[in-house]
């Protein structure tokens, strides 16, 4: 049911049946290391090139999530998959291997929000019993796609983020589980005219603010009614800007705001500057850290807001700004008797 200006309340809640996260070496050395399902020691995953490595990463996360749901790929009705590469090749060559009906989605680093939303709508409307949402990113493929060859010597600005090598996958199901998706807020493209692609947190913060404020208005909630509001990859600078922007709108969210990009790395020892980014960042933190926390009842209601910077090399060189987008997904703890354990 549509509510407010941009939101959907799912009349029949959709449950997150299982989740899986696979990350790279650097991510496996960060503070979230104990929470990930698999940590790859070889960032090339034994593949011939970086793109194939990312495909493999995504496929591993997808297969693991399916396995944890106790089913096989044939039981998945639709896959919603996305990544950051041109023409989404990591999804085509990764999740494509599962040979299931698939929609490729792109929302830059917000893609997990998009995949989850579309999956939840599909399941809630009865168009599939089980669907899979999966996204991935890889440091090396993203550097190649958006910046410089890895061997090129340059100084990254302090505002730059570090693309996460990782993938997260979730199986959505109508069957009752511990975590349910109860609402969605669809993000608008928000452009404050910034052109600095090396400061993506600042480019995306206005979009995150827009989606969060709209979610609160549409559902008639206060920030405190969420145990956590967790953005995708705003990083340290983006977080500060978001909290400032929210305050201007009259909301105090400092106490219960977290950011996957900040959670992912230890800024002091891992030299990641503003924090982690990429659509594997929010996806792997969701699957590794957020969903288990909700499943255990530590957090009862979470607003998950993956953020994306919508730019390409072409738009950047043609002098365009870097607009942002953020997708809001409301995740809640399910009370009572449930088969699933945490």
């Amino acid at each position, binding site marked *: 049911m549509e509510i407010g200006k941009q939101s959907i309340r799912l009349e029949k809640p959709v449950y997150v049946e299982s989740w899986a996260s696979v990350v790279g070496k650097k991510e496996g050395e960060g503070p979230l290391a104990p929470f990930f399902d698999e940590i790859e020691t070889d960032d090339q995953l034994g593949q*011939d*090139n970086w793109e194939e490595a990312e495909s493999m990463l995504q496929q591993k996360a997808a297969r693991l999530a399916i396995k944890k749901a106790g089913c096989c790929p044939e039981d998945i009705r639709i896959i919603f998959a996305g990544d950051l590469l041109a023409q989404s090749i990591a999804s085509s060559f990764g999740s494509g291997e599962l040979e299931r009906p698939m929609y490729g989605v792109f929302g830059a680093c917000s893609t997990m929000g998009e995949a989850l939303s579309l999956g939840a709508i599909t399941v809630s409307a009865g168009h599939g019993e089980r669907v899979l949402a999966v996204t991935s990113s890889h440091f090396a493929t993203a550097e*190649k796609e958006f910046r*410089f*060859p*890895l*061997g*090129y*010597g*340059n*100084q*990254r*600005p*302090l*505002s730059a983020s570090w693309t996460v090598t990782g993938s997260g996958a979730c199986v959505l199901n109508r069957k009752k589980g511990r975590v349910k998706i109860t609402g969605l807020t669809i993000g608008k493209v928000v452009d*404050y*005219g*910034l052109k*600095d692609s090396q*400061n993506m947190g*600042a480019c995306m913060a*206005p979009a995150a603010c827009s989606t969060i404020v709209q979610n609160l208005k549409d559902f008639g909630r206060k920030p405190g009614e969420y145990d956590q509001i967790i953005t995708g990859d705003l990083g340290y*600078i983006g977080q*500060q*800007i978001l909290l*400032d922007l929210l305050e201007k709108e009259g909301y105090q969210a400092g106490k219960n705001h977290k950011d996957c990009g900040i959670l992912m790395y230890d800024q002091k020892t891992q030299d990641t500057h503003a924090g982690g980014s990429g659509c594997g960042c929010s996806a792997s933190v969701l699957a590794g850290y957020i969903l288990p926390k909700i499943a255990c009842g530590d957090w009862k209601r979470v607003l998950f807001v993956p953020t994306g910077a919508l730019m390409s090399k072409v738009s950047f060189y043609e002098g365009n700004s870097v607009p942002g987008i953020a997708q809001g997904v409301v995740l809640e703890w399910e009370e009572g008797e449930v088969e699933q354990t945490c």
Partner: protein
Amino acid sequence: MQKDREKQQLYEEYVKKVTPTHSLPANMVKAFLVGGLICVSGQAVTEWALAAGMDEKTAGTWCSIALIFLSALTTGMNLYPRLAKWGGAGTLVPITGFANSVAAPAVEYRKEGQVFGIGSKIFTIAGPVILYGVLTSWALGLIQYVAERW
């Protein structure tokens, strides 16, 4: 529209205020040290070549070859980017920076093949420098030609 632009400008100024940047004096000192060190090692090669009895031009060529070789080698070993991260412009300005900007795409795009990978992408970073370098020297040559005959 005017209001939009004002809003954009205000946001830009605000972002600039909250965004940390590298310390310029510290970067300049590091660049001086690293850039200086590279140039001193180049000079050492030249001196060695001169002492070995070569003329100045040949010695200069040996200096360039040695620096370019070392830069390409350390790029392949992933050492040059680490040095560049610390040394900044000190690694960019000498001939080694140029060599790195050619070697790095060669390594990165090797997987896309000899022609469409290395062949067409090796100068993606150095290309503009070569094009406008040649163009500028051509323009300066023309100016000199005219000036000499005036």
